[in-house]
């Protein structure tokens, strides 16, 4: 033992160490006990609660959007389809800096300002956590590729497949079918959040809106297991969605397309109605737009362009456009004159080219300078469209009779077509003028009303409906787009008039087309069946007294609207047509040929309409008789 070790006491030091070591071991055991206690607490005491949390972590209930019902025309041609589209959505919870991410996406695939705006709008709405917010619908293949390659550094970006509405005849059916579009702020307040939980779009206009309830279907649900990044790993259970109901229309897509071909470059409307059912065979409003653009979200610029175009392509002229019916009301008022007993069929007038009320200087002019001459009967007045005759008879009938018969034929009343919006037009009457203008009725108003001018306004649909009632001798069947049953519809009402009077009016209307003096005789070339029609010209601006109407001097937009109504075959009417060409000037030249085309095509497609299918092998339509 040297000095250095003299101070050390190995025995004592060892005992000290053992004591400390055993004490430390005790502490170790206590702390191990604490750990075990903690794990016991989590795994036994809190087992149920934490298992629930674990399941909530991994199990996600997500809605499965139902397939929207399809829309077919009367022959089974698909008018509204669903196609797969690849949509780009962002799960905001997983995305890092949102603005940076969108900027990056902008570089990769280009993100428009309107898409960004829409995205942020939707982002600010109430959402389920981890619900993807769509940024871009309908990625093309190149964009899908770019995203797939860059996916790894785009956190939260998801490309999902969704069914998207597709309109094969996007332009020709835009006004009838309307379109679906992204649910907007206002709609989200009104729509059932549960039913729409899996759906991005809703019907905005047209049948898509009217039949939204049936087309939508019922949402389904699936519970899926997801990983922390929300990627679905497996499906646990599923309640299938119920697909929406398909719609079968009375519409014939061929006639519809033909109507648009005939309105090419024009502004106007064509409506064709199947008389036996009230089914709408065609309803065209030109110019039109491509409904498909609205499905994926039209750009704000293009939307502005459509909205502000002077031709108003978004405006559905068939149901929203209101035009003075002009001379097309003459068959109705003619029937009224006969039925009311104001005149007999033998009643004739002399037409000097104008009409004057008793004790009044003002001259109400006939469209024909110098007049139609002597011995103008009701028949002549319809065939040649003599205004003076109707001025005279209209005043004799009074506005009350005119209004009564006008309303029998649905003028000034909504037709009740199964579309979301429709205007009523105006059938002027004393009560109407008092209510709308606060003024008394003047005899001059009656003069104007008797030729469908003045306050009178109709929609093209109304005009077609009135024509169908004329054709069916008073049978009232509300027009209908969606075919709910296949049988012929019984009329809901019948306008009472004698057969002789119906015959008289039908004959006169037939001779509008088939008589050499008829205003629409130009369209009778090669007809092998009979069309009854009536031309109309609706003044856009009033023409002052003693002022000659010179079409050349009036700007195109101030020209008269051309109207034509027709039905065929006269002997057993099947189809009623109304055509309006805005600023087309003359019903005979601008509107009537369109109606002929439609009716010809109808007779071609449905030869049984001529009742000759059993007698003849084929029907040559438009050929030489």
């Amino acid at each position, binding site marked *: 033992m040297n000095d250095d070790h003299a101070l050390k006491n190995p025995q004592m030091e060892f005992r000290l*160490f053992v004591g400390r070591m055993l004490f430390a071991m005790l502490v170790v*055991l206590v702390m191990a006990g604490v750990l075990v206690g*903690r*794990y016991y607490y*989590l*795994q036994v005491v809190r087992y149920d609660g934490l298992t629930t*949390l674990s399941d909530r*972590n*991994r199990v996600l209930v997500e809605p499965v959007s139902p397939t929207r019902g399809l829309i077919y025309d009367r022959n089974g041609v698909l008018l509204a389809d669903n196609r797969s589209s690849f949509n780009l959505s962002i799960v905001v919870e997983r995305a890092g800096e949102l603005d940076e991410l969108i900027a990056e996406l902008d570089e990769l695939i280009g993100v428009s300002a309107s898409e960004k705006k829409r995205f942020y709008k939707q982002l600010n709405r109430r959402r389920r956590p981890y619900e993807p917010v769509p940024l871009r619908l309908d990625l093309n293949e190149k964009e899908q590729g770019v995203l797939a390659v860059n996916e790894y550094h785009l956190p939260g970006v998801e490309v999902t497949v969704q069914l998207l509405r597709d309109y094969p005849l996007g332009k020709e059916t835009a006004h009838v079918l309307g379109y679906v579009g992204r649910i907007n702020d206002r709609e989200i307040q009104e729509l059932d959040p549960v039913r729409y939980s899996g759906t991005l779009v809703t019907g905005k206009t047209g049948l898509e809106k009217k039949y939204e309830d049936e087309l939508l279907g019922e949402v389904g649900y699936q519970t899926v297991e997801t990983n*922390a990044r929300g990627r679905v790993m497996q499906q646990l259970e599923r309640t299938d969605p119920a697909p929406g109901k398909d719609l079968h229309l009375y519409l014939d897509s061929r006639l519809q397309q033909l109507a648009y071909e005939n309105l090419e470059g024009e502004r106007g409307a064509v409506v064709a109605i199947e008389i036996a059912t009230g089914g709408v065979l065609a309803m065209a409003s030109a110019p039109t737009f491509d409904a498909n653009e609205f499905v994926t979200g039209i750009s704000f610029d293009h939307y502005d362009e459509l909205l502000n175009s002077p031709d108003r392509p978004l405006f559905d002229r068939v149901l929203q456009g209101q035009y003075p019916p002009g001379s097309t009301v003459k068959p109705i008022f003619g029937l009224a004159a006969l039925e009311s007993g104001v005149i007999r069929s033998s009643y004739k007038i002399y037409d000097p080219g104008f009409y004057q009320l008793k004790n009044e200087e003002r001259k109400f002019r006939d469209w024909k300078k110098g007049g139609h001459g002597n011995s103008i009967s009701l028949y002549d007045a319809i065939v040649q469209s003599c205004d003076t005759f109707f001025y005279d008879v209209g005043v004799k009938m009074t506005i009350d009779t005119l209004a009564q018969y006008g309303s029998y034929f649905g003028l000034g009343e909504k037709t009740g077509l199964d579309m979301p919006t429709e205007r009523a037009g105006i059938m002027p009457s004393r009560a109407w003028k008092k209510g709308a203008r606060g003024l008394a009725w003047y005899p001059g108003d009656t003069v104007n009303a008797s030729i469908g001018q003045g306050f009178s306004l109709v929609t093209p649909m109304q005009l077609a409906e009135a024509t169908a009632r004329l054709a069916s001798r008073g049978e009232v069947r509300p027009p209908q787009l969606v075919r709910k049953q296949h049988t012929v519809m019984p009329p809901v009402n019948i306008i009472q008039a004698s057969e002789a009077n119906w015959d008289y009016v039908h004959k006169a209307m037939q001779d509008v087309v088939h008589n050499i003096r008829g205003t629409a005789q130009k369209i009778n070339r090669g007809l092998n069946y009979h069309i009854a029609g009536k031309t109309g010209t609706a003044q856009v601006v009033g023409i002052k007294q003693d002022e000659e109407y010179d079409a050349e001097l009036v700007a195109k937009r101030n020209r008269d609207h051309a109207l034509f109504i027709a039905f065929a075959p006269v002997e057993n009417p099947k189809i009623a047509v109304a055509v309006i060409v805005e600023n087309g000037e003359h019903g005979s030249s601008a509107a009537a040929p369109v109606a002929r085309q439609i009716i010809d095509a109808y007779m071609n497609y449905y030869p049984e309409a001529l009742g000759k299918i059993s007698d003849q092998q084929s029907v040559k339509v438009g050929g030489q008789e």
Partner: protein
Amino acid sequence: MSQGDFVRQMDSGSSAIYGTPNHWHKIHLDLPLLVLLLILAGAGAFVLYSASGQSTHHVNRQLTYYSVGLLVMLVTAQIPPRFLERWAVIPYVGGVSLLVGVLFFGIGAKGAQRWLELGGFRFQPSEILKIAVPLMLASYLARRPLPPNFKHVIFSLVFIAIPPLLVVLQPDLGTAILIAVSGFFVLFLAGLPKRYLGFALLAAVVVLPLMWLYGLRDYQRQRILTMFDPEADKLGAGWNIIQSTIAIGSGGIDGKGWMRGTQSQLDFLPESHTDFIIAVLAEEFGLIGVLLLMTLFLLIIVRCVIISLRAQSMFGRLLAGSLTLTFFVYIFVNMGMVSGILPVVGVPLPFMSYGGTSIVTLMLGFGMLMSVSTERKRPG
């Protein structure tokens, strides 16, 4: 030969503790400890396979780390404790120098500067100190009369304090505390008088609030706050703790089954194959798995305690004892933080978490323990 007999006679009275030398001792290995470590490594690889999402790549690398670790242990075991005692100051001074180097030339990761790069090889000098500090302290105190007097305590505290202070500057609070603790264990085992212990507690009460206010970085404070209320920041700092607690709890008593833990397999559990691997084990093997692992850990600790009690020198005892206690601290801190009773400090679970640094450092320590276990009694 006669002297050997003498030694054996001296030990025979308490052979239960001291055991008998066998041929493993010739290569300086302790068979029970080796077997326990191999079982632990096997269990680690097994859990890692599931925790890494059936990544054979990770498992293969981990097995490589185990092999490297075993080699390191084997080599270290051959170094006589006397040699370690004599040269303990070298790794200490070297380690401290490297820590200073980190502050000037270190490489940053996640807002901290912890790495040194030498010839394309990155390493954390703070790892060296986890061994170097207890080595230094054991060497210093073993030569002094125990219990240490005031002067020696003060010197010891200075030795203990320098490396953690440098590590805190990186900043890496967790490692700093672990280094300090490993040094403190030597002081404690050396018989640090109880009055100093009382004083230390008092000092802690005063210093901790001051450290909270001035010594901690924002993220460190956030980690501690998060521990107390993980719900407050569900997708941020609290995410890890919430998810690991759910993983552990939903494992129940018998677990969801190997590779069937939804929390870990579906990536809800972050760091599932590194720091949070115990949550995977708890989720897939339940409380039973946790208890088995804890038993394995405790068996290793008990074996190490036996080695330290059996050690032939005070240096050996102090070194073995402090390494053993530090080993447990790793386990406690890791399992505590994953289960939400300690802040998240980034301490891997020994032998279970994926990563070479931790394994090699641990094996270095176990190599020293084995060296101590086979030390011959020194003359005199």
